[in-house]
C-alpha cells in the first residue's frame, strides 16, 4: 500500500478568494503512482477552507458574498479579545465561522490512477482572511 502526504503552499492575494486547486491535486495523485485508492485534501488553517462546487466565477462570488452575509464583520463575537499566545487581538471570528460552515477537507476515490469526480466538481482552497501564504495537505492512499 502507498501512503503519500504532500504539504503544499499557496499564496492568496486577496482578503477573500476561491482558488481552484483541482489540477494540483491531480498532479499529486499522478506522482504518487497510486492506481486504486483515495485522496484526502485538507487545509491547515482555521480561517481558510476547502470545499467542492461547480467551478464557475459566479458561484465563487456567491459563496463568499453569502458567507459574509451569514457571518458579518460587525457581529458581536466573543473572539474579539487579546490572545496572549498570539500577541494580538482575535477579531477574525467571522473567518473562522466561514471555515466551519464551508468545511476544511474533501476526499475523492482514485480509479485507474485518476481522481473520480463529477464533471462539474471543482476543489477550491477558500481564503477567508488573506492575503496570506497558506498550506494545505494532500494525502493519497492506495495501491
Amino acid at each position, binding site marked *: 500500500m502507498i501512503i503519500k502526504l504532500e504539504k503544499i503552499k499557496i499564496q492568496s492575494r486577496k482578503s477573500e478568494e476561491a482558488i481552484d486547486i483541482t489540477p494540483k491535486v491531480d498532479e499529486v495523485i499522478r506522482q504518487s503512482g497510486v492506481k486504486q485508492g483515495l485522496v484526502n485534501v485538507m487545509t491547515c488553517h482555521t480561517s481558510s477552507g476547502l470545499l467542492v462546487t461547480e467551478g464557475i466565477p459566479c458561484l465563487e462570488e456567491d459563496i463568499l458574498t453569502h458567507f459574509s452575509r451569514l457571518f458579518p464583520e460587525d457581529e458581536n463575537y466573543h473572539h474579539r479579545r*487579546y490572545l496572549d499566545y498570539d500577541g494580538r*487581538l482575535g*477579531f477574525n471570528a467571522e473567518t473562522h465561522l466561514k471555515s466551519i460552515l464551508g468545511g476544511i477537507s474533501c476526499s475523492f476515490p482514485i480509479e485507474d490512477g485518476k481522481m473520480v469526480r463529477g464533471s462539474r466538481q471543482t476543489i477550491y482552497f477558500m481564503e477567508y482572511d488573506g492575503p*496570506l*501564504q497558506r498550506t494545505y495537505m494532500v494525502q493519497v492512499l492506495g495501491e
Partner: protein
Amino acid sequence: MRIDFHTHPVLIQEMVDKYPNYARMARDIFQIGNNFQPLETFHLQMDVAGIDRAVLLPIDCERARGDAVSSNEQVAELCSTSDRFIGFASVDPLKTGAVKELEHAIKKMGMKGLKLDAALQDFELRDSKVYELYEAAEGLNIPVLLHTGMSWAPATLIERGHPMLLEEAIARFKKLNFVLAHWGWPWVWEATALALKYPNVYLDTSCLYYDGPKEFYQFVFSKQIPTTVLERSLRNRMVFGSNYPRVEIKNMVHALCTLELTEACLKKVFEENPGRLLGLK
C-alpha cells in the same frame, strides 16, 4: 500616496531563514504568534489596504533583551528590496556611541527617522542620554517615533510609556517632531493634550487594545475623544499607523474610514502629514 507610519517587519520568512535569532526575538521578546510569511505577503497586505508605502520600525533592545527586534541593518536590507519601504533607525540611548550610530544610520544607511521604545529598550524617557539623541535627531532633521502607552511585549512595564514623561523633551526640542505611537493608549487624553499644546507633536493611529479595530476606534475616537477634536484640532497632527502585523493593515484603514472624518482630513492623515514628516515631495 498613502503611508502606513507604523509597521514591524517581524514575521518575514526570508529574514527568519537568514538570521538565526530573528524568530526568537519575534516570538519571545516582541511576542507574536502568527505564522511567518514571505515578504510578498507584506506587499499584498499593503495592496489590499490601499497603502502605497510603509515605515519599517526596528527596535534596538540588544542590551535589555539580548538582541534587536529587527536591527537597523535588517531594516535597511528590507528597504533595499523595494521603494515601498521607508526605514527608521533604532538606537539604544544608553549604549556608548549612540549618537554616532544614529548619524551613521541616517547619513549612510538612508534611514528617515528614529524609533525609540523605552519599555522594550529598558530606559527612562527622561534620562539625559535620551536627550542627547533628541538633540542629534533635531540636527539631522528627522522625526522621532516613540512607543507610548501600553505595550504587549511581556517583559515590559506599561508605565514606561506614559506620554507625559515626554513633555519636558517636547517643550525643549521645539524643532524636533515627536510622533507618539498608539496615541498613548490608555492615556489618550494626555497624548491628545500634548498634540493640542505643542506644534511638534504628532499622534499615530496604531491604537488597538480590545474589541476589534472598528469598535475600538468608534469608542476612542468618538465617545472618548470626540471625532470633532480630530477633525478640527488634530487634522494636521495625525498619521495613519497600523501596527502590522499585530493587526492587518486593511482592518485599521477600514476602521479609520468609518469615523466621521472628511475626505480632506483623511488625505492629511494618510498622505500629507506623514509625507511632510518624512520630507517626501
